[in-house]
C-alpha cells in the first residue's frame, strides 16, 4: 500500500499543475526525437525512396545514352522527376502508423496545439527522407555528367524542393488518413500541387548546369517552402481533426 501513497504524493494534485506543462519547443523536440528513433528501428521505410531515386537516375543513362554530353541536357529533368516521385513514395508513411495505433488521437487530445505537433512530425519526415534525397541528388548529378560547379545549385534546389514536398505531403497525408490504400489518392492529390516545385526546381538546376546564375529560381523555391511552412501545418491539423471524428 505504501507505494500507492508514494505515487499519489508525487503526482501533483491531478491536473492542477498547468505550469508543469513542457514548453512548445520541448514538445517539438520530443516529437522529433520520437520519430527519428522510430524511423531507425524500422529503417526499411527510409531506404525505399532513396533506392527508388538511385534506380531511376541510373536507368536513364542505360536507356538513353551513356554519352555524358547528351545526358547533361536531360539531367535536370531526370533528377527532379525522380526526386519528386521518390518523395511522394515516402509520404504515405507520414501519419499512417500514428493514426493506426491511436497515437495521433492521443496527440489530438493532449491539449497541445496539433499544428505544432504536426510541424515537428513533418520536420522529422523531411530529415529522414528529404535531406537524404537532397544529399544524394548531387551524386546522381555527377553520374549524369553534370559539371561539379553545378552541384551546390543542385543541392540547394533539391533541399528547398523537398521541404515543400514534405509540407504539401503533410496536408495530403492528413486528408487521406481515413482512406484505405491511400497511396494512389495521395499522389493524385499532391502531385498537381507539386508542379510549381518541379518547374522552378528543374529550372534552377538547368541554369546551374549551364553555369548561369540561378538565384531567382532558388528564391522562388524558397518562397514556396516558406508559404508551405506557414499554411500547411494549419491545414494538416484541421484535416487530422476531421479524420479523427
Amino acid at each position, binding site marked *: 500500500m505504501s507505494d500507492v501513497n508514494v505515487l499519489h504524493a508525487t503526482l501533483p*494534485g*491531478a491536473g*492542477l499543475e498547468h505550469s508543469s506543462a513542457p514548453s512548445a519547443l520541448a514538445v517539438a523536440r520530443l516529437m522529433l526525437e520520437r520519430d527519428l528513433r*522510430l524511423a531507425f528501428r524500422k529503417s526499411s521505410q527510409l531506404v525505399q525512396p532513396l533506392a527508388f531515386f538511385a534506380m531511376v537516375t541510373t536507368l536513364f543513362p542505360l536507356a538513353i545514352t551513356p554519352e555524358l554530353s547528351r545526358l547533361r541536357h536531360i539531367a535536370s529533368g531526370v533528377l527532379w522527376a525522380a526526386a519528386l516521385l521518390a518523395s511522394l513514395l515516402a509520404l504515405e508513411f507520414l501519419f499512417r502508423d500514428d493514426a493506426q495505433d*491511436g497515437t495521433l488521437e492521443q496527440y489530438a*487530445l493532449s491539449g497541445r496545439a496539433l499544428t505544432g505537433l504536426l510541424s515537428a512530425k513533418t520536420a522529422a519526415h523531411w530529415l529522414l527522407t528529404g535531406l537524404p534525397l537532397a544529399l544524394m541528388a548531387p551524386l546522381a548529378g555527377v553520374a549524369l555528367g553534370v559539371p561539379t560547379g553545378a552541384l551546390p545549385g543542385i543541392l540547394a534546389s533539391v533541399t528547398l524542393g523537398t521541404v515543400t514536398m514534405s509540407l504539401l505531403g503533410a496536408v495530403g497525408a492528413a486528408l487521406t488518413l481515413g482512406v484505405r490504400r491511400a497511396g494512389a489518392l495521395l499522389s493524385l492529390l499532391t502531385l498537381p500541387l507539386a508542379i510549381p516545385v518541379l518547374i522552378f526546381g528543374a529550372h534552377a538546376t538547368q541554369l546551374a548546369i549551364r553555369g548561369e546564375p540561378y538565384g531567382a529560381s532558388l528564391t522562388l523555391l524558397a518562397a514556396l517552402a516558406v508559404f508551405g511552412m506557414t499554411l500547411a501545418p494549419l491545414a494538416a491539423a484541421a484535416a487530422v481533426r476531421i479524420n479523427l*471524428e
Partner: protein
Amino acid sequence: MTGISEATLKGESVHLWRGERHVLRGVGFTVSSGECLQLTGPNGAGKTSLLRTVCGMSYPEAGRICWRGQDIRDDLPAFHTEMAYLGHEPPLKMELTGRENLHYWVGVRRRYARAQLDGALERVGGQRWADRPVRTLSAGQKRRVALAGLLLMAVPLWLLDEPTTNLDVEGQRLVGTLIDEHLAAGGLAMAAVHHPLAVSERGLRRLELGVV
C-alpha cells in the same frame, strides 16, 4: 483531496448521428468528483461514440458536454489538459519499449520526474518488462502500460473504453483499485464496460444505453 476543486462533467441531451443512424438519442448524465459513471449496453449501443463525444472528438448534432459548468467546445485544449482517454487499443508504438512509449506519450502533456514514471510502472506491475519493446509484450501487458500512462498523466477526468480488456483477474481488480483511488483523490471517471467494474459501490453511477 489535494485541491482538485469540485469538478462536474455533464452531458445535456446529446444527440449523435453516424450517417443514417441516430446513435445517441438525447443522452444525459452527470458525474462529479469522486464518482465513476459506468456505461453499459449491448454492442452498437453507442458507448464508444458517447466517450468520443465527451472527449470532443465527435461533434454531437444536438446537446452539449459541460466540464466545470462550461461547454467543452468553448476551450477544447483546456479541457483536454484535464482529461485522459484510453480507447480500445492501447496507444502504443510497437517498436518502442514500454518506458519510451510513456515518455513520448505523457511527455507531450506534462513534465514528470523519473521516479514518477517508475512509480506508475510499479503500480501496474510492469517494472520487469517495461524495457522490452512493446511488440514482445502480451495484450494484457500492453494494457497495463496504458494504465501506467493514465496514472502518469495525473488528470482529474478519466474516460475509459473497456479498460479491463485482455487483463487477467488480478489486472481487472487492479483497474477497480486504480479507479477507486482516483475517485478517493477527488477524480472522476467514465468507463464503457461489458463486465461490471470492480469498484466500490460508493461512487458508482450507472448509465445504460440501449440499441436504437
